[in-house]
């Protein structure tokens, strides 16, 4: 070995045999998956025949197991794209209602006024207690309960506005209201967890500077609560994107509804389900990327160094690999 740390020694990293085996198995399964995704099936009873030297040779006709050609044909059709647009609109609007109302309910929930906190609690209790699909139906058939919606002064005949429920509450609006109100119940719990997570000392410090309760909430508590609120909210957005497909039950032609409409006519069930699924997964991916950057923004001050973006990580990895090939790295010195 060395003396006085003059000489250098080669560092031999530990070999992880278990990891190698696991990787090999994983690669095998991946190969199987890719193979089956892009395999072909014989079409029953159909053959392509040719005459070769006077002999008829027949081979069964094949098609993609996952009908990729049909998927490709329907991927950008106007019905699907229109459905996608409705899905996106519904997701954004329902989440907006959910987030705004959810925050309000969370703030009400932590209020010192017992009546207000009880109202907030009851809201969450009610909307979390019934299935969202049932709620969608209830809003769609709301006109049975209230044929006319009017705003007036209770116990008098004074009405300010009124309109017929059936014509006003379209399938889109019913779905939007149902999903939004339901989401608010879940968002309020997420927001409340965020508000509670902020140390009480922060509030005390803000108050002792002379801030009002509202200023304290807005400038001190909420920005810090965001770090806790954002990740599950991103989850909720992604979940909402897919929950909107329930609106097809009341006849709204969103992405899934559009796919259903098409395969209802031509019986290409699987290809159209794949089309819808691919679109959902594509939008989810885009949303996940957005969520990463949002989380990074609100982690300000909480972490000593913010997490690397994928691009930064790639650059670091590439630089690390390149450095191994450049001039031989000075080997580690052993200090005795």
């Amino acid at each position, binding site marked *: 070995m060395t003396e006085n740390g003059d000489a250098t020694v080669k560092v031999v990293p530990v070999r992880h045999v278990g990891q190698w085996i696991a990787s090999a198995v994983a690669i095998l399964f991946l190969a199987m998956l890719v193979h089956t995704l892009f395999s072909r099936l014989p079409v029953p009873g159909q053959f392509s025949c040719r005459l070769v030297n006077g002999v008829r040779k027949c081979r069964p006709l094949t098609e993609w197991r996952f009908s990729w050609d049909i998927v490709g044909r329907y991927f950008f059709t106007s019905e699907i794209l229109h459905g996608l647009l409705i899905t996106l609109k519904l997701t954004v609007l329902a989440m907006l209602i959910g987030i705004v109302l959810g925050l309000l309910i969370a703030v009400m929930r932590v209020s010192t006024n017992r009546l207000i906190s009880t109202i907030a609690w009851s809201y969450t209790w009610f909307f979390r207690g019934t299935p969202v699909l049932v709620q969608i139906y209830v809003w769609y058939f709301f006109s049975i309960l209230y044929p006319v919606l009017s705003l007036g002064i209770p116990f008098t005949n004074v009405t300010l506005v009124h309109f017929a429920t059936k014509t006003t509450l379209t399938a889109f609006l019913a779905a939007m209201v149902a999903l939004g109100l339901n989401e608010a119940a879940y968002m309020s719990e997420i927001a409340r967890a965020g508000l509670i997570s902020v140390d009480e*000392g922060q509030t*005390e410090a803000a108050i*002792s*500077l*002379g*801030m*009002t309760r509202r*200023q304290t909430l807005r400038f001190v508590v909420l920005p810090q609560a965001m770090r806790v609120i954002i990740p599950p909210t991103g989850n909720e957005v992604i979940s909402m994107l897919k929950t909107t497909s329930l609106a097809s039950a009341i006849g709204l032609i969103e992405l899934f509804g559009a796919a259903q409409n098409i395969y209802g006519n031509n019986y290409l069930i699987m290809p159209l389900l794949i089309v819808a699924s691919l679109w959902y997964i594509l939008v989810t991916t885009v949303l996940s990327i957005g969520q990463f950057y949002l989380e990074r923004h609100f982690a*300000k001050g909480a972490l000593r160094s913010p997490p690397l973006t994928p691009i930064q990580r790639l650059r670091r990895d590439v630089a690390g690999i390149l450095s191994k090939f450049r001039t031989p790295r000075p080997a580690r010195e052993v200090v005795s």
Partner: protein
Amino acid sequence: MSTPMVEARGIHKSYAGVEVLRGVDLTVMRGEVTCLIGPSGSGKSTLLRCINHLEKHDTGELLVDGNLVGYEARGGKLYERNDKQICAERSQIGMVFQRFNLFQHLTVLENITIGQVKVKGVDPDGAKVKARSLLARVGLEGKERHYPSQISGGQQQRVAIARALAMEPKLMLFDEPTSALDPELVGEVLDVMRDLAESGMTMIVVTHEMNFAREVASSIYFLDGGVIEESGNPREVLSAPKSVRLQSFLSKVL
């Protein structure tokens, strides 16, 4: 004779049936440093928090700068002040906490400007200039863009002092400002507080630093079990304690 900055007479305060303060009298003159000492649970912090109305005292009379804290006396009745008035009162009293309580999501500079901008309505540029000069005063130039999690506890506490000073308070309250610090960081915070005392700031300091109390304070109060057991000139009180309770307390902390 000017009126005292803080005058407390017979302050009582209980939490859920436990009486934390049982009739406390205290007078703090302008420009003086007053130290509150005593075992934990004796009510020191509670008294401090009553003074800037973070806690409501139950009975007794508490005056800051000649005004009743949280109430207004008019025509023989006490009217509870509204939130806005209480906030205005608080903005003139600086408070420094044991756990610093810097706003974690804001930089050092933003921590010092936020109160000026949002509460006092100072324009952001003016607030920044003031914040920089205060940072220089507490010896932290160059730390403007750091977040609280990136600086040491002693530095955080000095930022907290600068944050309170930015409001130009007439009174500064310190709630065990060095108790959460590593021993080698205590000195830098006490130095800043000593400078502040020399500049004529009225200060009430809850502390276990007896040397600081002896050197800087003009009066000292020993609280035990929610009452003031002994008070007076710190040199006399600390070197010749009369009550048995203070004698045993000092034998433990000194």
